[in-house]
């Protein structure tokens, strides 16, 4: 289990992490989402032992990550910009990884060679961004990590390769119980692979739940009431967003669907229909409450 408690990290007086808390259950695929500059990458760099927190704790299975090779041996990461050394070939990087990770699986390496189809002797800096990412996945998966930390992992990959790497990762999750923490802006994709989601903003994790829990706790209803306009909704309902097209009102509530339907049923709407909520909508409306929303600006 990955656990981050009260982590503070400042850069020249700016708090990139401002008391962040996060818990990633073992064996889960955890999607970390948030607007640009929310602190996602900073948080992931603490989990890979690159950054040292000013305050708080960062642990994996109870052991601190900072300067702890025993923990890092079981963790592999793919940062957003992966190319470490300008002069290295794929094989050079494989040798480097093999020297650091005792569990590095050469049989798997050979098997994945066919999947990624990139010449081992090619200089990494001469590869495209997508191909560099493929090499990163290739090597990270060969380390047989118990914990895989990915920052914008499929950025630059073509759709087929995206599906391929997710398939490999999820295979590891299923077979080896690998814990995956992934930061991405591609919410549609995360929705397909994640079972847990955390939303970050301004250096804090605003909420984190399992995806089903999150979807159960947010309700999107289309409502049509008799007569012109809509009656005032009960004050005790937590309305995240409200819009209307003609007589059709679309309202997003936070709360259990049964409770909300029961409360609104008393208002005798002509139509009351629950619509599936996407992760993107949850992201947008949750952050809207945290003062981060799409603004209607006319240029």
């Amino acid at each position, binding site marked *: 289990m990955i656990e981050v408690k009260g982590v503070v990290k400042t850069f020249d007086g700016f708090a990139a992490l401002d008391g962040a808390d996060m818990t990633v259950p073992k064996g889960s695929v955890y999607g970390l989402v948030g607007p640009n500059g929310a602190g996602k990458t900073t948080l992931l760099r603490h989990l890979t*032992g*690159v950054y040292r927190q000013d305050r708080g704790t960062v642990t994996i299975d109870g052991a601190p990550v900072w300067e702890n090779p*025993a923990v890092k*041996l079981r963790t592999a990461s793919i940062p957003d910009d992966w190319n*470490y050394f300008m002069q290295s070939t794929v094989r050079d990087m494989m040798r480097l990884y093999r020297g650091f990770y005792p569990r590095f699986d050469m049989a798997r390496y050979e098997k994945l060679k066919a999947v990624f189809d990139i010449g081992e002797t090619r200089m990494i800096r001469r590869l495209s961004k997508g191909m560099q990412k493929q090499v990163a996945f290739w090597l990270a998966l060969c380390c047989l990590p118990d914990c895989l930390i990915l920052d914008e992992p499929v950025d630059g990959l073509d759709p087929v390769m995206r599906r391929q790497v997710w398939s490999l990762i999820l295979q590891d999750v299923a077979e080896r119980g690998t814990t995956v923490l992934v930061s991405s802006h591609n919410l549609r994709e995360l929705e397909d692979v994640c079972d847990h989601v955390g939303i970050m903003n301004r250096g804090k994790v605003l909420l984190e739940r399992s995806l089903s829990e999150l979807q159960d706790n947010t309700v999107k209803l289309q409502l049509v009431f008799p007569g012109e306009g809509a009656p005032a909704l009960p004050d005790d309902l937590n309305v995240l967003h409200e819009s209307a097209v003609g007589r059709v009102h679309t309202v997003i509530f936070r709360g259990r669907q049964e409770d909300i339907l029961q409360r609104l049923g008393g208002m005798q709407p002509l139509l009351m229909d629950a619509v599936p909520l996407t992760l993107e909508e949850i992201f947008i409306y949750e952050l809207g409450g945290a003062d981060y929303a799409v603004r209607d600006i006319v240029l």
Partner: protein
Amino acid sequence: MSWEVPTMRSGTSYFNGALSRSLLRRFWPLIAAYALTWGLVGPLPLYSQYVRARALNAWAVWRDALSAASNTGVLMGLMFGICFAMAMFSHLASPRATNGLHALPARRETLFCTAYLTGLAAQAAVLAVNAALMGLVLSALGVFRAAVFAQLFAPLLPMVYAYSFGALCMVFTGQILAAPVFYGILNFLAVGLDALLSRFAGTFLYGWAGGPSGAVSVLLSPAYAMFVRVEVRTRYVGEDYWSYAYRYDPALEVADIRIQGLGLLAAYAAAGLLLAVLAMLVYRARHSEDTGSVVAIRWARPVFQYGVSFCAALALGQMLYSLIFGQHFSNGAFSLPGMLGCMAAAGLIGFFTAEMLLRKTVRVWKTGWKGALIVAAALTALGLTLSLDLTGYEGRVPAEADVEYAEVGLSAYGRFYTSANFYDEASLRLLTDAHRAVIADKARQQRGDDADDGELHRGYLYAAYHLKNGGMIERRYELIFDRAERNDPASLTGRIEALAGAQPLLRDKAFGGAFSNDLTQRERELTFTGGLLSTARKPIPRDPLSSVYLPQTYDEEVVERELSAAEARAVYEAIERDLAAGRVKNPIFEESEYWDCTVELYYSYAGRDSQYDSSMTRTSITREMTDTIAVLTQLVASLGVTFEYYVP
């Protein structure tokens, strides 16, 4: 590895083979260049130069081999030390590489030690191979000497220092190009700063003669110290001291050869190892996110910023002043506000430049104005403190009883110079009286009346008092003497003239400075071995302005006569008699007549703790030295010369 014991940390390993191999694979061109360069400056020229020699001088071959191992070794170590450090720690200058490497399962110590040891081992291997090749060449030439061979490994010492210091520079900065700049500046910083500070103090303090920190600052400037203090020395048969290896004398036969300064190199190598430990500690404390910063260590940033500011104030400020106000640093035209203004302006330029480098932006006014204010105020306060002499520096003259001895130098007219060490209280009193007169005359001296005009003449007084408590007071004054004041014994000119008549200075005059006071103080017995008398057959034309012989006539007109040991002693005793009788003068403010005759006296003495056991003195004869002239007249009688006096 058990996941069930999650809090267990792995034992610290200090080396990772995979990283080491990766470094070697990536930077083999640097290693190859290093090896190739060594080959080109070491074994190859040694072999090609001597392989065709008909009569091989073994010591000359060794001299060249050791020269390559010492002087070239220092240069190569300094040049390649930083290159290897930049290569081995290059990941610290690229955020991507820093983050990638620091995410791998290894402690910072492991990463540092692996990089450091890999670079060290690569260089050491090249040097070992180079030494072995040199040994093979020397064997092939048939001059191999096992006793000297070990010295061919001397380049290891400057390499250890230079590479370790380079590593420290690399962990201190996050910019690859900043590392060689820091490396270059810091290797010479102490001597540079010493010179700047000395000039700075000299601008404000009357009598400033340079700080006592010369030797220390040289030691703190390793590159400079190694360049000036390491050389090949030879001991010749019949001599028990080590002298210049390239000293040419066909009669000299070499007894032994060695690299002088190996101790110094070993000390710097040891310091290098300490620097490496320090670099590792800095590496541990360094934050990954500071890669890309000019100064990656946070606490060092203010040091860097104020350091740059201070150095800019000293160097650029004085340059700025000389551009605007001219070269008036200590005379009447000196402008204190001008100097303070220039230094403050230069300090601010340095401060804001450093701020721009640290913040990576040119918009630094808002963030830097407070610091800038501090810099300007501090520099102005420092300048004012020095110019007001709040420490009492300018007025300090020791009591004679507190002085063990004093070194004195006195010059006037620009062509009269005398110096000696004063031990006796009477001479010291003459010195302190003159010193006080110089201090009392400060206002007039700094007004800078036109010298060399009528009765005014330039000169200087140097005094270094070695105190009985181990301290030292050293002063140097550029002076203007007024000959019209000669009749007033209390005037500056009067005091200086009295000082010129001090017995140690008269001895210096009589014996041309060759007999040191130390020697006479220790009352060592001199043994004269001979001498040489040179005089003109007839008056030799001289340049009317400089009194220098016109060269085309000198060789034709001068005759020489060698003196026996007994004759040399006779001349010496005559000079001593003239000295005792007061017939040797130091005519600092009046012209004196010289005889166109020079006597060199060769002598030896017990060289108990001295490098040399023989020396010579050269005496110029003035008309007043009647006893000496009487002896010399007899000696030159057979040469048929005409005595001629001249006024220099």
